[in-house]
């Protein structure tokens, strides 16, 4: 066994590769976004730097570095630098728990001179750091006292992801909510009125949509009783009737649409881009930023899209699971595979699914007009939070009613087709109730009425009191 394998854990390589891959993808997502925008608006898009504009991201990156990184005199010097740094730092940190490729299992055989007392101890010594020994090692001893040789066969497993945390989903929600600070600190430190208003609006937008985001994640968590993303993905990698993959999009479509809306709002992108509404606020919270500090804001927006889309894939689309892609060796644990190639293929499947969700982001951005501030707030507080809360109650009640009578669920904890059908019907009933209830709610007051601005020439106030002579 080579020195690298025993001393450098696999997650070091995965961390560097995932970090590099995500930053590279971010650069090309910007090109893709510009191409999609151009296609939507019947233009050509960037096509001068390299073939089809493929070198445009490199040119953009160089420009970010070579331009002047300017700070206005009135800006707070420390906070002005801290804000973009914090945004990017948080986005790099948030990729930690994404379950890229399930669990890798390796069986090794080593030879030790002499007889040994504890095979487990020897096997543990030769297990890579961060991996878990599975089962009892098998020992075969040959030869006599002097020339005795022991052959130990042992098996270990490690998660093919950066960090296998048991609070995975909570970790991502907690880390991503720090990015609100990046926006509000950047807006405040610039000491610019556009930035300040943009920062305030972004804060209100982002914290409002964190509530339904947390609730729609809870509806998934309550089905499996685990916050570990790897566990949630593995629980989705079986089939109903032998063909339909047990992805949560089929059991919780309503929660998926709530989640998708929330991650659009969290990314501060159209139609939720009141934070940087170009026509009103110039550039929003990054009006005063230039060069790499602006670049970090820009990169973090796209990196955040990748992370939230990846969480969406892990929660609702079965993560690395693809019907037809085999390689699992343990029927009880479908995530376990002995082949490194399968792990990489699974990571690619995960990544392609993530890119499809990002495609939806871009499609939405160039199709829908921007919401007004009150529309965004009403959607979050009056519609999505009650809906998500009721979805949680409905999911818990369905589990309680069907779970104890379902032998397969009691044995394995996997969602069986009976429960899936029950959850789907519950979703449909919810949708009907929402549609009927929305019609019964009292109509909102007309929002486009004229606002009195005292003292202006549009003031509709009664005629001024006659001046006393």
């Amino acid at each position, binding site marked *: 066994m080579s020195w690298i394998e025993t001393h450098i*854990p696999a997650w070091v390589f995965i961390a560097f590769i995932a970090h590099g891959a995500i930053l590279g993808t971010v650069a090309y997502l910007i090109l893709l976004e510009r191409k999609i925008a151009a296609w939507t608006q019947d233009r050509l898009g960037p096509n001068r730097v390299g073939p089809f504009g493929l070198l445009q991201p490199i040119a953009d990156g160089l420009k970010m570095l070579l331009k002047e990184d300017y700070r206005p005199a009135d800006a707070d010097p420390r906070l002005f630098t801290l804000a973009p740094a914090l945004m990017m*730092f948080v986005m790099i940190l948030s990729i930690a728990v994404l379950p890229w490729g399930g669990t890798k299992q390796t069986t090794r055989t080593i030879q030790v001179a002499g007889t040994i007392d504890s095979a487990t101890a020897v096997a543990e010594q030769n297990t890579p750091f961060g991996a878990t020994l599975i089962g009892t090692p098998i020992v075969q001893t040959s030869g006599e006292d002097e020339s005795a040789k022991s052959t130990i066969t042992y098996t270990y497993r490690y998660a093919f992801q950066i960090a*296998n945390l048991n609070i995975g989903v909570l970790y991502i929600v907690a880390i991503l909510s720090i990015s609100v600070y990046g926006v509000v600190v950047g807006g405040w430190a610039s000491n610019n009125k556009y930035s300040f208003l943009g920062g305030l609006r972004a804060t209100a937008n982002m914290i409002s949509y*964190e509530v339904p985001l947390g609730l729609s994640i809870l509806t998934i968590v309550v089905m499996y009783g685990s916050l570990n993303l790897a566990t949630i993905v593995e629980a989705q990698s079986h089939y109903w009737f032998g063909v339909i993959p047990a992805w949560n999009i089929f059991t919780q479509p309503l929660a998926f649409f709530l989640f998708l809306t929330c991650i659009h709002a969290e990314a501060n992108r159209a139609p939720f881009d009141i934070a940087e509404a170009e026509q009103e606020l110039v550039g929003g919270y990054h009006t*005063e930023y230039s*060069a790499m500090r602006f670049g970090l804001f820009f990169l973090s927006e796209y990196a955040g899209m990748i992370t939230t889309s990846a969480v969406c894939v892990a929660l609702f689309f079965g993560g690395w699971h693809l019907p037809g892609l085999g390689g699992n060796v343990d029927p009880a*644990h479908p995530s376990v595979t002995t082949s490194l190639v399968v792990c990489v293929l699974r990571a690619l499947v995960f990544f392609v699914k993530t890119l499809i969700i990002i495609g939806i982001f871009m499609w939405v951005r160039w199709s829908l007009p921007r919401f007004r501030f009150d529309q965004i707030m009403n959607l979050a507080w009056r519609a999505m939070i009650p809906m998500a809360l009721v979805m949680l109650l409905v999911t818990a009640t369905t589990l309680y009613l069907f779970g104890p009578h379902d032998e397969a669920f009691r044995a394995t904890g996997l969602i069986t087709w009976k429960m899936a059908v029950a959850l789907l019907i519950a979703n449909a009933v919810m949708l009907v109730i929402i549609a009927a209830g929305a019609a019964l709610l009292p109509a909102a007051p007309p929002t486009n009425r004229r606002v009195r601005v005292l003292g202006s020439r549009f003031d509709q106030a009664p005629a001024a009191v006659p001046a006393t002579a």
Partner: protein
Amino acid sequence: MPPDMEDAPSNWLPVVLLIIIGVGFVVSNIVASLIIGPSRTGPGKAATYESGMVPVGDTRRRFNVRFYIVAMIFLVIDVDIIFFYPWATIFAPVVRTGTPQQGAALLISLLIFVALLLVAYAYAWGKGVFRWD
């Protein structure tokens, strides 16, 4: 259910590595940009950008109170949602392996909690907290 990876503090080591990568990436980028880029200043350039006009007044002033109310109501409801997480992790295992009474007790505790949350929600709605027009 998936294999039980041991739940050790060493599971957090990758996060430490990512913190190092993150700080390194951010600091090196900002420093490189500051070193490589030009640096010229002047009174007009140092002024706050207000669409080319001479800046009017300061930004450090009072703003609409509705943002403060959003923050308060967010705190109220988001803290409640944090309390749902431990409940959500034990509900499915108890329904699977526990007695029906234990499952019912957990479900009823959820209903009571949500009812209390709805009281606060209805109060806030009645007070006009969710009016942004």
